[in-house]
């Protein structure tokens, strides 16, 4: 079931939650809506589900306009952030709920319902807890019950609101992989909301980055990470160093340092004035190389201020001669090889010339 979203706008009082959002979700795809809180990602998910009504715009399921259709008729499965399990029902009854409330004509027999529920509980590996109440389950177990309950009605679209938000890091990681496996098994069109870029990049076929009610970029994890369309996306998907510079003849000047810019690294604000030559220059800490010798071009001198060798990489904080702080992350081997100490004078350059330049 494909989903086409066109011109969605939604306001709450004077707050614009979504502003003219267009999005296509293909059949069988697993899509992440990624953004900070207040970016409109959950509102968009609730509009797809029919739990919120947009001010303007349409949502089409497989070409059919569902904007006017009620939540009941949409055939979506929704997993709530805090699971919203029916607390007075057992796990079994929770999963059976969607089957029991069907109109009399379409209702399955008790035996069929039992069979379907047991099958689903086996799928989420919780068949041994069928007669427990939600309050007797751990967070991860509740999550999986919520998923089984949503899948029971055989939804054409599965929507998940921060599915791992309320779990601790270890369980989150496990469930993430498990959900990916489940999706590959079922192939139901799925959309999930997250504020965790790692989760989005690891789990989703495509990532939709939202910022202040607008879509910043849509693409595969690789596309959004390596070819961000805007400073926001670049910033949101990892740590950055930011400098103010001048863009002139294929080079960007920061203080007296000139760095070469490739076209693919160059982006411009829609209202940018090229004559002013002003630009923002972004570099990722793990793309920076440090050496005592200059590498010929694109390097700039800096002084080591702080070293933190704990963690998978060594974090080095340096001071450039134009007065900005730079954060770099280098491998432990490289750190030992250099024998880096505080107050060392070194040269820094972006590896493979990886820069993100944004003309303003």
């Amino acid at each position: 079931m494909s989903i086409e979203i066109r011109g969605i706008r939604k306001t709450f009082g004077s707050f614009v939650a979504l502003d003219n959002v267009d999005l296509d979700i293909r059949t069988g795809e697993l899509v992440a809506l990624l953004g900070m809180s207040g970016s409109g990602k959950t509102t968009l998910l609730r509009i797809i589900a029919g739990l919120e009504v947009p001010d303007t715009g349409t949502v089409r399921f497989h070409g059919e306009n569902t904007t006017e259709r009620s939540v009941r008729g949409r055939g979506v499965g929704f997993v709530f952030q805090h699971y919203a399990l029916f607390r007075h029902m057992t796990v079994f009854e929770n999963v059976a709920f969607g089957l029991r409330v069907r109109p009399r004509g379409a209702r399955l027999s008790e035996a069929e319902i039992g069979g379907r529920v047991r099958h689903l509980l086996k799928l989420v590996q919780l068949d041994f807890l069928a007669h427990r109440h939600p309050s007797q389950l751990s967070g991860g177990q509740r999550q999986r019950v919520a998923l089984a309950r949503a899948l029971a009605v055989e939804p054409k679209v599965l929507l998940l609101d921060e599915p791992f938000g309320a779990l601790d890091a270890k369980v989150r990681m496990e469930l993430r992989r498990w959900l990916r496996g489940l999706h590959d098994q079922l192939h139901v069109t799925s959309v999930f909301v997250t504020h965790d870029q790692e989760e989005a990049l690891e789990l989703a076929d495509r990532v939709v980055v939202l910022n202040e009610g607008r879509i910043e970029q849509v693409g595969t994890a690789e596309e959004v990470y390596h070819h961000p369309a805007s400073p926001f996306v670049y910033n949101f998907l990892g740590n950055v160093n930011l400098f103010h510079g001048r863009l002139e003849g294929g080079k960007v000047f920061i203080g007296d340092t000139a760095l070469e810019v490739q076209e693919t690294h160059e982006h411009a604000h829609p209202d940018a004035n090229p004559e002013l030559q002003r630009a923002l220059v972004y570099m990722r800490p793990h793309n920076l190389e440090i050496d005592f010798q200059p590498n010929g071009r694109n390097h700039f001198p800096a002084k080591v201020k702080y070293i933190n060798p704990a963690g998978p990489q060594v974090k080095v904080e340096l001071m450039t001669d134009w007065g900005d702080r730079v954060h770099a992350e280098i491998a432990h081997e490289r750190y030992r090889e250099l024998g880096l100490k505080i107050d060392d004078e070194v040269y820094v350059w972006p590896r493979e010339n990886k820069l993100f330049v944004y003309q303003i």
Partner: protein
Amino acid sequence: MAENFGFTNSKRVSRILSATAEPAPVRIALIALTLWFLALFLVLPLIAVFAEALRSGWRLYLAALVDSDARAAIRLTLLTAAIAVPINIVFGISAAWAIVKFEFRGKNLLMTLIDLPFAVSPVIAGMVFVLLLGVHEPAGAWLAAHGIRVIFAAPGIVLATMFVTFPFVARELMPVMQALGAEEEEAALVLGASGWQTFWRVTLPNVKWGVLYGAILCNARAMGEFGAVSVVSGHIRGLTNTMPLYVEVLYNDYQFAAAFAVASLLALLALVTLVLKRLLGRGESPEATHTEVESFQREAA
């Protein structure tokens, strides 16, 4: 090692206790004060009621209760509660639902109005009904012309009781519904349930303890109400006397044993109410069962 661990553990517990607890004399004084107060104002009168009722022996006690006027009073009281409580439940659920789930103008005004019967003296409530529906007033005259007598008759008693018990269920439910939020209902709708199904299968089971709790309090008040009912009843023996009114009539007639016998029934009702309330309070949190611990142990294993 294990011993050592136990030692540090118990030490920490004792330190926490001493940090939060008052010094012993203060503790004893507070407990003594509470117990004295309870004994003086609650236990002693309660014992007095039963002692006085049974002073002339079981036979007189039972005779007082099976007297035809007493039976009529008990019947009227039960009838009043049987009408007022269900109506109050329906009203309470709809009012709580409206106030918690919808945003509308005048919501605060509605909440204040629901509390009005708590704020107004019951006597005034009774007076209002006499003023509105007495036979000398237009509405009352019209009803009387159609053969319906409200004031100095059972309908007036039911109306006055409904007025004073008005807020019980709604007040009890509002915080419960507020705390529950709308997520479970949204989940039910997404799963294809109709509004009705959502109400019966999700909302009501979730608030049933609140409804019962409110209904019990409402029932206790409906049976025990004196002031408002006294104004509209007219004290016609065997016809418009409820139990509290009948107790007063007997007392004024110097029939102390009989008065206390009926009073003891009301007191018994109060005790039953408290026990029920207590039992329901326990029912409200079925989560805290040992199986919870078990499930985590199994998880861990």
